Each structure stands twice: as C-alpha cells, then as structure tokens.
C-alpha cells in the first residue's frame, strides 16, 4: 500500500475543497453575514493542510487498484469532515454529528436533512449546502482527474473507483479529456437551468442553489416546503432538468459529437425514459382526484417521479398522503435510480437491464440446455466479468440494505419509516415516507442509526465496493 500517494491525493482533495469554499465566502460578503468567517477559516485550514501535503510529489508513485479504491473512499470522508466544519464553527448546526450528516448528505447528493427549519440558515450556509451537491454530483475525483497531472495508471484506478455504473466508459482515449468533457456538459446543463429559472422570475440566489441541487441530483431546498412554493413553470423547468441530469452523460457526448445513432441506440436511456413515462401515467391516474385539473395531476406526478427516479429528492407536494399504489411505485423507483454515468444514484437502470437480461438467459438455458447466448447491450456483447460484478453488486446492495434496516430498528419507529429511510439514503434520494417523508426530516434518528445512515449515503454514492475495500483488513495488511 502506497500511503504517501494516497496522502498526496487527499492533499489535493483538500486543496480543491479549499477552492470550492470561495463561493460561499463571496455569498457571505454579498449578504454581509458574519457566518462567512467560518467558511474563511475552513478554507484557510483546508488550503494550508492541502498545500503542506502536496508541496512535493511522492517519490514512489506506484498506484494500483487498492490505492485507487482506498483513496477514493477516504477522499469522500475527508471531504465531508472538512465540509462540515463551517456549520459547526458558525454555530448554525452546533452538533458535529448533525453537521457531518448534513455535509455527507450534501456531497453524496442525497439531500436528507436533519434541520427542521432550513430558512433559519444564513445565505452562505444555504449556498454551501447546495454547492456540495454540485461538487458531489460529478465527483471531486473526476474534477481532480481533469486538472491534476497524474500518471496514466493512477487516473484509471481513480476513475474506476469513483465512476458510477457497471463498467467504466470513456468518451475519448484520455481520462483527462473525458473528465473535462463531463464537467463541460455538467456546467452547461447547470448554466442552462439557471437561465431558464431566471426567465421564470426566480431570484438569482434561489436559481443558483436550486440548479446546483438539480444538476447534482441532490435535493437540498432552501425553503422549508422544498419546491412547493414556486410557480408551476419553475417546477416544470426543474422536472425537465432533473430528468436530463439522470441521463447517462455519454448520450450528451454522442449528441455533441453528432453521433446521433449511438445516442439513440443507448438501451439504458430508452429504458430510463420508458420507466419514467409509465410511472407518470400510472401515478397520474392513481391521484387523479387529488388535484383540480389533469394538467396539475400530470405535473405533480411528473415532478415527483422525476425527483425520485433521478434520486434528487425535491418535493412539490407531500406525497406521503398519496394513495398506497403511488407510494409503492415511488418507493420502487427509489431503487431503480438513474442511468449509469449520470449524477444520480440508486441501483442504476443499466444494472437492472443487465439483470433482466441475465434472467432471460437463465430461462433460455433451462429450456434449451445446450444453448449459448451472448447478452448484448447497445449492440455490444456484455462481458462475463461485467455480468458477474453486476450480480455481486446487487447481492451486496441487498445485504447492506437489510443490515441497515435491522440496525435502524433499535429506534422503534414503524417499519415504513425505517425501510424508506434506508432506501432514501442508500439510494441518495433524500426524503422517504411517513416520519422521514417530504415534510419531515431525519433529526428523529439519534446515535447509532444516524451513523448507519451516514455510512449508507457514502456506500450508495461510491457504489459499495470502495467503502468495503476501505473496511477490509486485507487492504491494510502488508
């Protein structure tokens, strides 16, 4: 294990975090808020620590899979711990464990909050909360890949560990350029959304924070009623952008590089859009009596479906009081998640597509025992290795889910609350049902369950294995 290289990368993570802390400082300056000093202090701490560590590149630059996985999960932990500091220093979230929960929830783009009164926060804290979504959405390591001169192998291992989805897909030969293209698309989507929101008459501060939350598929709102207070147009814009951010970014790259055929051929995106349309239709039919017009019904259904499947977690209405059928569909969508290679969480549509195809293959194997069938996706055969790791992912995911629900039961809340709390954190969504529904928050969890939920958020964002690698004693054994 090459510790010096891991520390070096962590140093860079701190440097980058220090830079990312500049915008909230500016916000504090604009609004003349005292809590800005907390951000300034954290920034100085991050930068001085980071610069100290990254002053010299380590001699031993050997970097392999285990270093990649460990440094990715450690990066996210370091990022969250330092990101929580401003909340504690400024006294806006006095308990460190609460602040950490809030920050992890931010960086992992979950959007689950422990605050009952969001509006009491200062502007700079609101901004930082939403900004962590934006940073975490595309991934800090991806950003580092784009800017840092690292050796080829190092990049590949980092990317493999951080990028969501069953297999790493590069857009262009160089990871550095791939990372730049991804961030380019990401920034463009964010800017477009800000413009559309401004056109609808939303104040700039709201437009920025809402866009950060949408693009990163996070879900921290700056109002206590989440998105319910905004006009239908604004909610519509957010719906569209949430769904756009849940699409595999490769599709955008194909469109930019005018390979429309490839973009259209992406089975995952088609399945994703199909699931969305079907869910909207069913839910709209189910809740048809709750809203005055068909338009309103479809609009509400679409917003909630888009918000849940992309794992964003904004809400325009309390879907906790919806009929059971709609609620069940929404909970199912929590697990489906967005596309691989997007900013969303969950199991990912592509994994489900692969799993369904494996089942089909298994059935075929029973009917025709000698048959040989290659499973294909987007016209390419799926390698056995990918299928195997998808299956293992699914098993590990289910086990972690079950274990988390078991651990949460010490709180003696009802089953739906615990079940959806884990679903909402492990899938990086935000609100669950019942006591953690859209009008409630996660402050009901104290002690161990809170840490379990924090771990679930990280496990969900990093797609299980980086965290498990970090916890495996073999990683640290010489």
């Amino acid at each position: 294990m090459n510790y010096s290289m891991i520390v070096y990368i962590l140093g860079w993570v701190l440097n980058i975090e220090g830079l990312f802390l500049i915008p909230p400082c500016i916000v504090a300056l604009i609004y003349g808020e005292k809590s800005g000093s907390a951000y300034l202090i954290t920034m100085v701490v991050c930068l001085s620590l980071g610069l100290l560590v990254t002053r010299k590149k380590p001699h031993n630059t050997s970097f392999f899979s285990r270093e990649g996985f460990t440094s990715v999960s450690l990066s996210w932990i370091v990022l969250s711990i330092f990101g929580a500091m401003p909340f504690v220093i400024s006294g806006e979230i006095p308990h460190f464990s609460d602040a950490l929960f809030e920050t992890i929830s931010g960086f992992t783009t979950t959007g689950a909050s422990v605050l009952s009164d969001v509006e009491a926060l200062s502007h700079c804290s609101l901004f930082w909360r939403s900004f962590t979504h934006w940073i975490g959405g595309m991934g800090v390591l991806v950003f580092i890949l784009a800017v840092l001169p690292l050796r080829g192998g190092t990049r590949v291992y980092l990317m493999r560990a951080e990028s969501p989805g069953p297999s790493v897909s590069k857009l262009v030969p160089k990871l550095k350029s791939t990372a730049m293209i991804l961030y380019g698309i990401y920034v463009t989507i964010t800017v477009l959304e800000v413009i559309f929101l401004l056109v609808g008459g939303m104040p700039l501060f709201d437009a920025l924070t809402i866009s950060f939350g949408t693009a990163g598929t996070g879900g921290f709102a700056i109002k206590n009623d989440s998105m319910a207070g905004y006009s239908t147009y604004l909610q519509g814009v957010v719906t569209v952008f949430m769904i756009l951010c849940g699409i595999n970014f490769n599709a955008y790259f194909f469109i930019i590089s005018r390979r429309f055929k490839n973009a259209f051929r992406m089975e995952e995106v088609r399945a994703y859009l199909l699931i969305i349309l079907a869910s909207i239709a069913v839910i709209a039919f189910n809740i048809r009596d709750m809203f005055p017009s068909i338009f309103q019904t479809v609009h509400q259904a679409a917003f909630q479906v888009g918000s849940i499947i992309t794992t964003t977690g904004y809400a325009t209405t309390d879907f906790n009081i919806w009929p059971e059928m709609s609620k069940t569909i929404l909970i199912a969508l929590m697990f489906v998640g967005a596309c691989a290679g997007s900013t969303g969480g969950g199991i990912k549509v592509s994994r489900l597509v692969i799993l369904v195809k494996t089942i089909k293959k298994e059935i075929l194997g029973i009917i025709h025992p000698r048959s040989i069938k290659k499973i294909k996706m987007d016209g390419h055969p799926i390698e056995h290795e990918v299928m195997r790791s998808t299956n293992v992912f699914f098993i590990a995911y289910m086990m972690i889910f079950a274990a988390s629900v078991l651990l949460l039961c010490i709180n003696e809340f009802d089953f739906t609350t615990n079940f959806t709390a884990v679903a909402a954190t492990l899938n990086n969504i935000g609100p669950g049902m019942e006591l953690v529904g859209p009008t409630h928050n996660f402050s009901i969890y104290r002690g161990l369950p809170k840490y379990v939920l924090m771990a679930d958020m990280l496990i969900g964002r990093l797609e299980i294995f980086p965290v498990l690698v970090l916890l495996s004693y073999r990683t640290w054994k010489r």
Partner: protein
Amino acid sequence: MQIIIVGCGKVGTALTAQLCNEQHNITVIDSDSAVVNAISTTYDVLGITGNGSSYNTLIEADIEQTDILIAVTTSDEMNLLCCVIAKKAGNCKTIARVRNPVFNQELDFIRKELAISLIINPELAASVEIARLLRFPNAIEIDTFAKGRVEILSFKVPENSALAGLALWELSSRFRCDMLVCAVERAGELLIPSGNYTIEEGDMLSMIATPQNANNFFKHIGIHTNQVKTVMIIGGGGITYYLTQQLLAMGMSVKIIEKNKERCEELSDLFPRATIIHGDGSDSNVLFEEQIEDSDAFVTLTDIDEENIMLSLFAMDKVRTKVVTKVNRVNFSAVIHSLNLDSVIYPKHITAELILSYVRATQNSIGSNVETLYKIMDEKVEALEFIIQPTLRIINTPLRQLQLKENLLVACINRKGRIIIPGGDDCFMIGDTVIVVTTVSGLQDINDILKDR
C-alpha cells in the same frame, strides 16, 4: 496526436506504454476482450474489443480524427488489411508490421500501392541492428537516412589521431572519400563547423557519408573499428537469414549452426558462401569443433531466450570481439542487463523504437514540410529531411549563392537514389530529398534555411 494501435501483444503493449507517457491519445483495438481490459486498466487509453480491420470497429475508434494507425497483430495479412482500410476510412498515416520474408522483396511495391507509410519487419530490423554492432563494435553512434543510403556517424577523435590538426576542408581530398563533417562538439559546446574549422583531439565529430565511404574513411584515418571478420551464428531462423545476407555483403565469413537438417539445406541453398553446420549449438563439443575461439563474433539467435543467454555466457571469454544475444521477452531486461552480456538485442524493442521514432518525427513535422526529423548528438542537433517541391524559389541556384542561416548546413542531396555530398556548385533540383543539419530548431520548410531578410 490521435493514435490507434491494433493488436495488444508485446509490441503493442510496449508502444502503448511509451506513447501514453508521451501524452498521445491512444485507442487500442484487439479481438481478445481480456487483453483489452488488462491494457485499458493499466494505461490511460480507450480500449475497443473487435476486429481492427473491420470498418465499423475503426469508425468506433474514431478513425476519421486519427493521425496514425499502427497495426501490430500477429498476422501480416491482417496488419496490411488494417492499414488499407484505415487509409480509406480515415486518411491517416499507417504503420504495419510484416514479418513474412516472402513480402520482404515486395515491401516497396506494397508500401507504394497500398499507401502504407511505414512497414516494419522486426526480424530485418533486428538483423540490421546486429550487423551494425558487428561492423563497428567500437562506440560509434549511427543514424541512417534516405532508407539506409546515407548515415550520420558520431565518434570521438582519439588521441594521436591523423585527424588532429587538420582543417575540415582538407579531409575529403586527403582521404579521398566523399564525406562531410556536419556537427562538432568540443568541451560541451556544439557547433556546425565551417570548412576552416581545425580538428582537435577529443572532439566529438558527426559526419555524413554513405556506408561504403564511412568504412573507407575509418580505415584511412586509422581509427580501429575492430570490424568483425568471422561470425558464428547459432540458430538459423529469420533473423539469421537477413543477417547473413548483410554480413556476406560486407565480406565477413559466416558460420551458421542449426539443428534442423532441412533448414540447413535451405540455408546452404540460399547462401553458398556461408558455412552451414548441422548440429546442436548448445553442445559445447560442437562449438569447440567449429573453433569457437577463432571467431571474432558469436551471435545467438535461437528461439529460446534461456538457451541464448546461457550460450552467450559460455562464449563470453572464448570469443575475441563481440557476443550478441537475442532475447524475445522484454519483461526481464533489468535482470538480463545485470548479467553483463556483451550486447543484447530485443527485436520487440527495436520494432517499438522504430515505430516510436516515426511517430515522434510525424509529430514534429505536423503542419510543416519536413519529411523526417532526427535528433543527433544527444538530441542537441536536428537533422531534417525535406523534399524539394517544384514551387521552390531556390531551385537550380548553386548553393554558394544562397544566404544560409548560421549554424546550418546542407549535408546531403539524394537525387533519385544517388547520394551527393554537396559542394558550393551543387544545386537543388525538383524531386531531390535534402538533409539539412542544424542547431536551429523549428524549421518548417526548406525556405527556412535561408537567412531572414
């Protein structure tokens, strides 16, 4: 640059590693997905599983934006087909590895007709390298130009040499051979000398000449080149074939020891002047019987690395001048280096190096009219090859009338295969290739050799 490498064997992997290090954008194609996975997790490259000669696969690899395609699969025909299709699909430069000696006679035809930029025969390349080692066992650095017709040789002027104290203009007439000193390094300082420059002991000279003239020159000035006269080769494979051809042409006496009777007969048919021994080269009796002590050089070219290494270790203290060992596997070069074998030849390295130098030259010449670019004298001097286009202003003007830049020399003109070491009365003609040696970097065009006005 955008580069596609088809075939991820040893050479493909070595190329990927090196080119990746040099910050090129690499896409690798191989039909074995396990190999593609392995290479794309170790290096920052895009891996595509598929047939490199398929149009669709190439399109997927973005052939239209590609600058160079390198085909190094195991099959010659596949490599050639890849290049042809890539050329048609993307109009990029193409490099193919072609091993079969059958094609060797036809390389020029294939290259021209299929529009392939570079064809590399690893066995031929390795044999050229070995022949060079045997020709000048002393430390003389050689770069070849104009497809091997001209060489730039760098050597140190030894103490008490006949050269010391002579001015450069005296050299040609004095030693009656056509050559030109094109760069001198004295006490760490590098310059392109004029005719009045006087040579001193310890100068590092770079001179340009044909291989023939170079040999004569070294003979005349009494630099002991230690040229090998008798060579013993173990193993009668492809490299042996090419090597024997060259060594015989240089007038050396060649003895080949080969196990396979039929191959012996083939070789004896091909090279009547060589001595072909049917026997086991790893049997020391056979070696003593064939007077290993009387050979100047000992070259081990069997297919088995271990056998080559053991044989060379055995021969080290018995052979007079040179022991050359061929090693196929490149993974353990550090270990092999520590054995202190005299010279070790890695055919895979040589192939990779040739391709790399072509890629580097292409990169240097992007957007310019430079045909090839070489760096000599520890990369401090550039030797550039230009083709004279009909539109050039200075055609048919004698060189003495041209106002050339400082530290620049027109070193050689290749006129339809005839090598001219130019004097003041020579001039450029359409279709010539011209080699210019200079310490000024960044020349883009033959017009750039003139002084700025």
